[in-house]
């Protein structure tokens, strides 16, 4: 019974709650049961907030019984997992870093306020690469998360925990943050759906900053519609975030429902030449599934053309300047003064505030974080600002212009989400550049601020999932939800159900 329950989509769960076929508490308890069974092998969570989640579920059930749920979002009562990069009042928040270990925030992120107001119980905090810096979740200070499809493989990153939690049925929904692909690439690696909304479409207030001009909170789900419904819960203007767009959230759920009709007549889809899936660096399995998906889109009436974004290849260079620069400044606040870890200098070293800070940061940050801080400090240091950070911002202009021009010709753009399927643990940690290169397909959306979605488009020969990515114009997130939902529906037909039915789930008791 409970397995059937947790395998429902979030939209289906919500419907059962509304119809009083199941309570929020029952659902939350069912998810907590899966978490208990799966966590020893999955380790998707850094903290499970069982008591809080059940209390929230009870509070919602009471409201529902009293008929007091008018105006709540469709997902009211459905539980959710939160990437541990988003602050939660009273629930430890660590960014998977030793430097924040044990920190209990005294405030909620705006998205958490919205989740709570929606009556959605928070199951716990999911694992990630430390401060969201990585593509495999191997850089978490608190251990690896495992890919539910294959325990030898990474779940992607940085949001490996949220993606693994969703695809392993530990949670129907999760929140992620996406700076260079941290929602979409793990979605691709785990056969789930991940969305990076338009920059400024979802408030960043309370999202621990990695690279402020690139970071965006977004939904992780098992279906496009679920992602859209969650997108509508968390999106919209927030006066506590100066980069928040003063406009209502686009009608993404309606667009997803429209897509489920599988009619894409009149929809113009541009395949990005520079990251087209047939080019260099793409695994054959990825290219094959991608091309098949394109045929599916055509068969539903979409007009597919190839579009060139000539400056896309420069995105990576710009990203490696902007990202570490902002990281170096954003992470300066972790200094052992106001919260988190404090390490005093060893004997023989002057016990000064400056040394305390330096030893705290040496001990509290992992290698990858330190590397990026140093690189960013270098990029911003004396005399280089204009030549470096300034140049990277110029490339950003060029990439934005490329997207704008492309969107004059087509409604959405498409590419594989990642050049490969999930790789094995340890495979890329020794070669940071190889890890970075994996982000080449996802980074342009962050740089240009455009929304992008990853949906599963099949598995490779090793039965590992492949992701298909759509990009839409800024502030038109709905444009990508329609073809994404259509593609999902068409492919599910060929698979005989959600892609996750191809995944073995030994942690789910029969």
């Amino acid at each position, binding site marked *: 019974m409970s397995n059937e329950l947790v395998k429902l989509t979030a939209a289906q769960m919500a419907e059962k709650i509304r119809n009083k076929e199941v309570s929020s508490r029952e659902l939350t308890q069912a998810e907590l049961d899966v978490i208990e069974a799966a966590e020893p092998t999955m380790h998707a969570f850094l903290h499970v907030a069982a008591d809080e989640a059940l209390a929230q579920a009870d509070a919602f059930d009471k409201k529902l019984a009293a008929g007091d749920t008018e105006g709540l979002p469709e997902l009211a009562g459905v539980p959710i997992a939160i990437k541990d990069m988003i602050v939660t009042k009273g629930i430890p928040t660590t960014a998977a870093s030793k430097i924040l270990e044990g920190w209990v925030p*005294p405030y909620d992120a705006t998205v958490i306020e919205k989740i709570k107001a929606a009556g959605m119980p928070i199951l716990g905090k999911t694992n990630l690469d430390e401060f969201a810096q990585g593509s495999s979740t191997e850089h978490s200070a608190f251990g690896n998360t495992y890919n539910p499809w294959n325990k030898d493989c990474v779940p992607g990153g940085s949001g490996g925990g949220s993606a693994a939690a969703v695809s392993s049925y530990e949670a129907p929904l999760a929140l992620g943050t996406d700076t260079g692909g941290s929602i979409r690439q793990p979605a691709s690696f785990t056969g789930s759906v991940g969305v990076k909304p338009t*920059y400024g479409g979802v408030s960043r207030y309370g999202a621990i900053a990695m690279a402020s001009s690139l970071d965006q909170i977004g939904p992780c789900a098992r279906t496009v519609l679920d992602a859209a419904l969650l997108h509508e819960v968390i999106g919209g203007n927030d006066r506590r975030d100066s980069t928040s767009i003063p406009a209502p959230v686009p009608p993404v759920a309606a667009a997803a429902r429209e897509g489920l009709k599988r009619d894409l007549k009149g929809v113009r889809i541009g395949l990005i030449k520079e990251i087209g899936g047939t080019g260099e660096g793409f695994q054959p399995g990825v290219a094959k599934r991608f091309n098949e998906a394109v045929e599916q889109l055509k068969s539903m009436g979409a007009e597919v053309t190839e579009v060139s974004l000539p400056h896309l290849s420069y995105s990576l260079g710009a990203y490696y300047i902007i990202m570490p620069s902002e990281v170096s400044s954003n992470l300066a606040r972790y200094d052992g003064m*106001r919260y988190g870890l404090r390490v005093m200098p060893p004997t023989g070293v002057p*016990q000064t505030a400056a040394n305390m800070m330096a030893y705290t940061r040496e001990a509290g940050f992992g290698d990858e974080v330190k590397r990026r801080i140093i690189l960013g400090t270098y990029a911003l240091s004396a005399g280089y600002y204009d030549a470096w950070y300034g140049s990277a911002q110029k490339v950003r202009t060029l990439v934005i212009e490329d997207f704008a021009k492309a969107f004059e010709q087509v409604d959405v753009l498409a590419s594989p989400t990642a050049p490969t399927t999930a790789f094995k643990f340890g495979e890329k940690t020794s070669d940071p550049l190889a890890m970075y290169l994996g982000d080449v397909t996802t980074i342009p959306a962050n*740089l240009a601020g455009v929304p992008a979605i990853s949906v599963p488009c099949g598995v490779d020969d090793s039965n590992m999932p492949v992701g298909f990515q759509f990009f839409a114009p800024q502030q038109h997130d709905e444009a990508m939800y329609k073809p994404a939902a259509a593609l999902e529906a068409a492919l599910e037909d060929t698979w005989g159900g959600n892609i996750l039915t191809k995944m073995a789930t030994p942690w789910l008791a029969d």
Partner: protein
Amino acid sequence: MEHLADLARIALSDEEITRMQGELNVIADAIDEVQKVATDDVKPTANPVPLEAYLRPDVAETPLTQEEALSGGPVTDQGMFVAPQILGE
């Protein structure tokens, strides 16, 4: 490299300093790449979505309590955060 570590306030070990020295090339390569197209006629973009600043009305909201403010502090005393010896300039 020591200068960078000092600016970044990280007491890097010798081994780390040696290792990271080489990685500065990552940045150098990125710069070379970027400067190929970052010509004078291109305007830089700081924020990907063009917005102008929202100006917040000057109205107070409930602050954190002192207890909340200090709750994460590694060392606190008399309602304040304790810093080890700060050397004068």
